[in-house]
């Protein structure tokens, strides 16, 4: 197809400035990636709204589905700052979003999708000086959905704003702060230890869940 029109499911030229992965390896990761970066969200958009739209590209009958949604937060205020990661179980689902969803509206804003190298600890936070996204530092227009230029939110949105601002007040940093979302099916009878473990031990397989939970309870 590429001979006649450019397919929409190509990753952009975005280069994660903080990744330690080289360009070739990045390409390789992207070609298998199940994670989608979603940008230009309103600060008020919820994970459930995101789930509703992005589940339209899910293929549960092929072992896919939305694994988890990681809301991008302002590092200082712990409030959504206009981006998120949507992680699927399969690469094809992420590609489908680039073809069908990127460039359409969610919560009355045109969202932009891109393939992502995959979530890593700390990436849920904005990288701008002020704690939010870098692009909002340079933005000069008025954008009610992304904090306006001051606190001039419309009246209708005051209630939403209050809810949203409280929602992630408990957001944590560090390993285990972001849930895994559930891994593949495991046979319960096979290894009695597995019943006691999180099915998604992608963080650090050497630790069992006992220690991890102890860590969490101290941290959170």
């Amino acid at each position, binding site marked *: 197809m590429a001979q006649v029109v450019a397919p929409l499911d190509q990753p952009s030229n975005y280069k994660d400035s903080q990744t330690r992965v080289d360009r070739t390896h990045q390409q390789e990761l992207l070609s298998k990636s199940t994670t989608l970066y979603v940008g230009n969200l309103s600060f008020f958009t919820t994970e459930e*709204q995101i*789930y509703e739209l992005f589940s339209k590209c899910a293929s549960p009958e*092929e*072992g896919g589905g939305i694994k988890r949604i990681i809301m991008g937060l302002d590092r200082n205020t712990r409030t959504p700052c206009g981006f998120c990661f949507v992680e699927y179980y399969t690469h*094809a689902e992420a590609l489908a979003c680039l073809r069908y969803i990127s460039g359409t509206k*969610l919560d009355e804003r045109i969202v932009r999708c891109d393939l992502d190298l995959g979530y890593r600890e700390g990436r849920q936070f904005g990288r701008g000086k002020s704690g939010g996204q870098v692009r909002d530092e340079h933005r000069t227009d008025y954008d009610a959905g992304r904090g306006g230029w001051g606190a001039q939110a419309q009246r209708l949105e005051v209630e939403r704003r209050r809810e949203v601002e409280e929602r992630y007040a408990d957001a944590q940093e560090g390993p285990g702060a972001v849930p*895994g*979302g559930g891994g593949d099916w495991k046979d319960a009878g096979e290894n009695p230890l597995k019943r006691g473990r999180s099915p998604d031990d992608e963080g650090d397989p050497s630790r069992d869940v006992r220690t991890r939970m102890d860590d969490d309870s101290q941290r959170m």
Partner: protein
Amino acid sequence: MSYGGGGYRRKHHYRDDVEHHVHETLEQKIKSSILKLGEVDPLQELPRLSAHICAQKSTITSTVVEALRIGVTQQPYKIPYYATLLRLLSTTSVSEETTLQGQELGKQMLEDFWKGFQGFLDRLAWREIRHCVHFFAHLAVAQVISAASLYNLISAFVAVLDEFGVSHGRAKQAVRCAIEGLMIAGPALAAESSADITSIVTAIKSYVQSVSRFKYLVRPITGHLADDGSHNVANELLDSALTALEVMYEDGFAQGSECFPRPYVEVITEGSVVFALPSVLVPPEVIELDGLSSESDILVKKADWAEFHIRIFDNDVTPDPNTPSGYAVRCGLLDLVDIFEVNRKECARLLLEFPKWTIPGTFQHAQDPVSDKNWQLECTILEVTCQTSVRIASPLKPSVQSILGQFLLLPESTHKSVYFITLITELCKLAPSTVGPAVGKSIRKMYNLLSEGLDVALADRLAIWFSTHMSNFNFIWVWKEWIGDLGLSIQHPKRVFMRRAVEYEIRLSYYDRIVKTLPEQMQSREACVLPEEAPRPIFAYDDPASPYHDIAQSVLNLLSGRAKAEDVMAHLEELKNTFETTDTDGNINTTIRAIAVQSLLHIGSRSISHYLNAIERYLPLLRNLAGGGISSGRGSNTEARSDILSAVLAFWKQNNQGVIIALDKLMQYQIVDPTDVITWSFVHAGPKNGEYRTCTAFQWDLIKGALDKANGRVVIAHRRLATLRKEDDDNAARAKASHGGMDIEDAKPDPVVESPALASAVKALASLTREQEAALTQTVDGFFRCLVTPGTSSPATRDVITTTVWDNRNSWAEAEWLSWETWAWYIHLCRTYAPYLRNYASTLEANVFADSKVLDDPAGELFKKIWSSMLD
């Protein structure tokens, strides 16, 4: 002209190209000019392009052929012009400046092109095959290839219909190749004495008439549940193709020039036939591949159904698909939608430019309003696209392909319905003033079909389309024109649609935003369009008056204080013991489970992430609860899991999406199994808790989620096993190679020994396959209890299945509509999951249909009829 909108953009692209490809080779330039043929005016460009090619060295021919192959298969609307180009290139030149031209060149190019066609045939790439046939058919009329050889090619496709046990999917493609080839090449074939068109038409007709069994389950209008007849608002693709062919055949293909542009007729003065297509056989379908044969019994084969297209507009607005030109226009648009799926924005632009490639006068034109056809482009595109978007297609890709796809096949994607939805969005953005009204008309027409028995799955897809579309256009809709329908029964499909559409809109947006878009009458509680209040969690023990308020609060405090799972379990154990001494109520276990699960949901209610965090932190607790009770393991597991599910439903009573997400993740973390969800959904998630009576759209969502989970797990297990097998084989081969110099006795690998990972993968697959079978059995059994079993089934289930009763549907009450809907979801189950159901048919029949007496009444007969239509 009115399509000038795209012109500016093209110019811009062109400039970009010049900038980016300064060092473009001659070959690239030639290829690009062939692919871009006709961007301004194909007729003017053709002689220039042809002269340019003829001035090159003979080494250019392979480039030209490659470009033609891409052009024909990816821009089929240009095929008549590509045929003209080849005609020009194969005509002996009188000019001396040209180095290339003439019969030899044409012959050489066609030989080369044929190799590519053979490649498509070998891969059974049907769309490409069909477009090559179009190309050959035009070339036959242009007298470049011999009519007799084209006739033989078409006969090869007709021969497919006589194959023993030919699948409908394969036969359908072959029929389309034959019919479309005949329609285009009709005039040439009619003049060819060796061509026996009558026998071809007869053979196609007898096939098309013999396959009505593929229609029953996929009728888009299912009002008359038991009736086989199709409704007049829908046309079946092959029926339309055959009717169109017969019309042409009867008048000696005179209509051909009104359907297909034939630019070569004007360009060519004289020219003789230069090529005869070699004879071919359509290769057989590859059914199985070695290496996976041991699992083949559980792999699924895609089900083939008839393809109904709903008619939204009248014949004077959009072309009748049963006429030759109507069929040609529709197929042309369908191909565009299919080919340009990779870029919906380009697809939208090309769809709006489509009239440029049709016979002038086909579509309404501002400057030339008088024409015999004069169809409305936007409505036609909408009819084609939107019926595609709501078409009942099996969403299942054959697992064989998705597994092997990783290794052997090119990636193949089934288009998701969201593609069609956002394609329509793009069309609206490009031409808001014309596409917008066409969308409005389409929605109204489809909405009105809801009273005529529009299939429930289509109705739901309509609601999804409606809400997603409105979400892109400020939720502006003239709701007030449907106020009159609020008087209908609360379960009437129109009212179900309004509720669903508003619910989906709220999910994409938020409650207060959507309320504002509705007229007052629809905002009232009695209208039942809106949920009573914004979706919110309901913690049953919030009320201090609740007898369990204090207890629940103590559990909640532990959870929000992030207490260890063991401590929470110990606390629950303590509570239970206290209950046992003070309370004589038998449902202590249920109460404890409800308190624990609701408290957990409560701390996870802020967002999906919070919910997942809560689950992950308290997995041991949830597993303990699901295992049948706190520590002692009293009570049955099934009952415990049903209690957990009921607690979720109670908590998210005001939020269907909350239930769907919560259950999906409980299955993902293996707290509950898909079978638990299915059984529970039938009994507890309907309008009447505790009874097998109905399957509503919401219940179906839950059941489908569980079935997909069970099926998806089998797919993953297959994939893992295939990867491990391959690794094992590779390792064995490597070991063998490295032992090459050693004693043969030592190097011999033991064929029986498998790696532990492989052994456990085999075991996992077996166990997941059993789970899949159980899930399907529970589903069929659930429908059987709702629809047939005396005592459990609703009395209305027998009332709604006769034609006379359907005709009196205006007097139906809630119970009748619910029963009708349940029947329709059962039909949807059978067609959607046919490949899986067929795999387990004998077990399912033994389990569900054991009591043959029950099957004797009308409901039993219909249940069995639907089942048998699926098996066919």
